[in-house]
C-alpha cells in the first residue's frame, strides 16, 4: 500500500519588504495592455528594482525557496508580467545544477544580480518536453561547437543578453550559454494569448567557443530536469495566485451585483461554483507549499512536480473560466482584469509540459510502460 502520513500544512513565508507596495496598482489592465504591445513585454524598470533589492532569493539559497514560491504566487495574483519563471528560476536552477563553479561565477551571479538578462530555451517548434523534443543540434568543431536549429516558446526573450539553450549533442544533451548578439542568432516574437513575450530563437550555424558549454557536455538532461521540477513548483504558485485573484474578483462581484433585488451570491448555483473555486484554489495552494517544503528540506522530489502541475493546471484554469462565467458580459472587457488571469493560467498550461504530459510521467512511474499500445 502507498503510505500516506497526515501532516500539518506548510505556512507560506512572508513576502520581502517593499514587494507588496511595488504591486499596489496591479492588476492593472491598462498597464498590462501597454506592455503587451512592445517587446520584451514586461516592465524592465520594475524588474531591475526587484533584482536590485534582492526580492527573489538566489536558487542556491535552498532554505529560501519558499520565498521565491510566495513571490511568484503574489505576482500571479497581481497578473504582472515578469521574466521570473523562465529567466530567473528556470535559468538559475539550470545553471545551479548543470553548471560547474565557473558557470556559477560567470552566469549564475550576474543572473541573480540582474547584471545580465537570461532567457532559457528547452524545446523546439513541436513544444515537447520529452528528451526527443529538443531540436537544437550541437556539433563539435575544431574551436568548440556549432549550433543549428531552433528553440521555441521562450518567454520575454527579446531583451535577453544571454540565452541558455539545451541542445542535442550525440547521444546526450548539452546546455549552452549563447550571447544573443552572436552571429547566426535571430529572434522572432510569437503572438501568444498569454502576452508573455514568447519568442522563437533560430540558430543558424552559430559558432561557439568550448567555454560556452555549461557543465559537462552530454550530461545536461537529468540536471536540467531537476531545474524544470523546481520551476514547475514556482509556476504552479503563479497559477494559484492568478486563480486566487480571479476568485476574489468573482466573490466581490457576486456579493455586490444585484439581480431581481438580491445579490447574485445568494443563489445556490452561484454559491456552489464559488465553493468549487475555493476548494480548487485551497487544494492547489497547499500542494504548492508542501512541494516547496520538500525542496527546502532537501528531500527527493520524485514525481512531486509532475503531480503538482497535473493538479494545478486544470484546476486553476477551471477557476479562471468559472470566474468569467460568473462575471457575465462585464468580465470580457479588456479594462477588467479577469482576462489577465485567464490568459496567464492558460499560458502556463503547456509551458514545461502540459497536464497530459505530466500525467504520463506519473502513470509511467506507477504503472510501468504500457504494452497495450
Amino acid at each position: 500500500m502507498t503510505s500516506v502520513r497526515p501532516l500539518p500544512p506548510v505556512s507560506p513565508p512572508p513576502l520581502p519588504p517593499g514587494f507588496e507596495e511595488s504591486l499596489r496598482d496591479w492588476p492593472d489592465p491598462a498597464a498590462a495592455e501597454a506592455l503587451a504591445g512592445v517587446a520584451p513585454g514586461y516592465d524592465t524598470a520594475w524588474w531591475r528594482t526587484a533584482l536590485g533589492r534582492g526580492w527573489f532569493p538566489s536558487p542556491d539559497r535552498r532554505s529560501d525557496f519558499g520565498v521565491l514560491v510566495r513571490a511568484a504566487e503574489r505576482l500571479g495574483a497581481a497578473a504582472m508580467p515578469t521574466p521570473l519563471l523562465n529567466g530567473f528560476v528556470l535559468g538559475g536552477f539550470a545553471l545551479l545544477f548543470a553548471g560547474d563553479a565557473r558557470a556559477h561565477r560567470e552566469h549564475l551571479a550576474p543572473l541573480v544580480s540582474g547584471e545580465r538578462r537570461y532567457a532559457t530555451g528547452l524545446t523546439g517548434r513541436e513544444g515537447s518536453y520529452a528528451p526527443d523534443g529538443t531540436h537544437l543540434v550541437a556539433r563539435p568543431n575544431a574551436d568548440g561547437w556549432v549550433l543549428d536549429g531552433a528553440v521555441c516558446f521562450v518567454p520575454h526573450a527579446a531583451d535577453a543578453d544571454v540565452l541558455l539553450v539545451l541542445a542535442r549533442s550525440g547521444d546526450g544533451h548539452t546546455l549552452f550559454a549563447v550571447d544573443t548578439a552572436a552571429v547566426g542568432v535571430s529572434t522572432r516574437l510569437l503572438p501568444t494569448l498569454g502576452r508573455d513575450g514568447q519568442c522563437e530563437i533560430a540558430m543558424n550555424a552559430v559558432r561557439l567557443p568550448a567555454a560556452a558549454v555549461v557543465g559537462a557536455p552530454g550530461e545536461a538532461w537529468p540536471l536540467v530536469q531537476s531545474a524544470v521540477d523546481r520551476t514547475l513548483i514556482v509556476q504552479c504558485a503563479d497559477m494559484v495566485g492568478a486563480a486566487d485573484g480571479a476568485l476574489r474578483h468573482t466573490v466581490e462581484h457576486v456579493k455586490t451585483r444585484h439581480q431581481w433585488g438580491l445579490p447574485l451570491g445568494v443563489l445556490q448555483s452561484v454559491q456552489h461554483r464559488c465553493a468549487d473555486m475555493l476548494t480548487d484554489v485551497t487544494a492547489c495552494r497547499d500542494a504548492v507549499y508542501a512541494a516547496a517544503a520538500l525542496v527546502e528540506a532537501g528531500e527527493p522530489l520524485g514525481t512531486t512536480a509532475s503531480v503538482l502541475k497535473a493538479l494545478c493546471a486544470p484546476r486553476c484554469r477551471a477557476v479562471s473560466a468559472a470566474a468569467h462565467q460568473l462575471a457575465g458580459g462585464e468580465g470580457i472587457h479588456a479594462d477588467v482584469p479577469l482576462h489577465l488571469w485567464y490568459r496567464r493560467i492558460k499560458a502556463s498550461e503547456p509551458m514545461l509540459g502540459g497536464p497530459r504530459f505530466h500525467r504520463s510521467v506519473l502513470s509511467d512511474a506507477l504503472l510501468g510502460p504500457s504494452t497495450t499500445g
Partner: protein
Amino acid sequence: MTVDEGQPGYARHAVEVFAEELDEFLAAVMAEAGEHADPADLTGLDEPFERRVLGTAGTRGMLGIGLPDEVPAGPWLRAAFDFAVAAHDAPLVDTAVTLAGFSVAAFANEEQHAFFLPRMTGGELTMCVAYSEREAGSDLRALSATAVEEGGGYVLSGVKTLVTGAHKADWCCTVARTGPLGSAAMTMFLVDMAAPGVRVVRRPTMNGWTLDEVHFDAVRLPPGAVLGEPGRAWRQLAAALRAERSGMFHLGFARHALDGLRRHLRETGGGDPVSRDAFAALEVDFTAGVRLACRALSADRGSSDAVAQASMAKVFATELLQRIAQEATEAAGHQGMIHAPLFAPEPAPAAAGGRFAWEYLERVHGTIGAGANELQRDTIAQAGLGLPTARRK
C-alpha cells in the same frame, strides 16, 4: 530517535511511528478476516471478529490515540488512524470513539465520563448514533422523536433511520424533542440498546449490508441518560459537527481503491492510454484530497475557516471516491461489473476480485451522508467566502 513534543518535528515523528505500528497491527489482525465474512454488515465482517479486533486495538491504546485534543499531535494521530483503518478495510472506521467520542468527551457528566470513556477507548463497547429520521436528515430541526419527562426520567418514542451498526451496538447516542415541534428544544441521550422498547429493524442497502432503523417504543430512560444539557442538543450537535473528522477515512478508502486499480492495470499490460491517463489524474487528485484533509485538521477549531475547510475536504474526498469507482469499473469493462462483498470469495473472472463493482455501488452514499454535498457547498461559500445566506424556513 526521540523528538521532544514541543519541537516542530514532533507531529511528523509521532505520526510516522504510530502509522507504522498501525500498518503492522492491521496487516496482522486482518490476515484471517476471510474466515469471518458477513456481507450483511457494513464492515463485511461478523460481529465476534469485529469485537475481537476492537478489543485488541483498544488494549493496545489505538482507539483513544490522540485524545483529548490537547494531546500534542492528537488530531494528526487520529487522522493517521482513520486513514489506516479505512485503507486496510479494518472494522475500526465506525467505533464508539469515532462515532460518539466527541459528544461523550465534551458533554458527559462525571459519572458518564467514568463509565463510557474507558470502555469506548478500550474497545469494550460498541455504539451507534441515531439522529436522522424519515423527515429529518440534514435538517435535524424537523425531527419528531420525543422524550417526555416522567418520574424524574424520560420516556423516549420515535423511529430513527440511517443508523450504522445499531444491530450490534451496546449503546446509542440519539436526539429527541423535549419541547414543541419546530422549536430547537432537543435533548441528547445515551440509550442502552438492551432497554425494553428498543427495537432494531435491519434494512438492506443496495450494496447488501444493512442500515438500521431504531424504533424507540416508549423507552423509559433514567435521568442519567441525558448527555449534556437538556434542551441543548442543537448546539451540541453543531459543535460535534464542527469537530467532524477530517474525512481522512474517505482517503483511506480511496487509497485502497486506487491501489486496486493500479494492480489491475499493471496486471493487464499497463492499461490502455486513456485508462492510464485517467488513473494518473485520480492519483493527482488523491494527493489534493490529502492536502485538503490536512488543511481541515489544522484550522482553528470552531472558526468559520475550519467549518469551510472540513466541508471542502468532505466534498472533495467523497466525489473522488465516486470517480475512482467509475474509472475502475469502466477500465475493467465486463470484468469490472462482477460484484463480490468484502472478504467474500472472488468470483472469476472478476476484476479486482469483484471489488470495483462493490465500490461502484458503495460510493453512492458518501456524497449524501454526514451533510449532503449540496449543503456542504453552501457552507463553503458562506463560511469560506462570506457569501450571503439564503433564508431557510
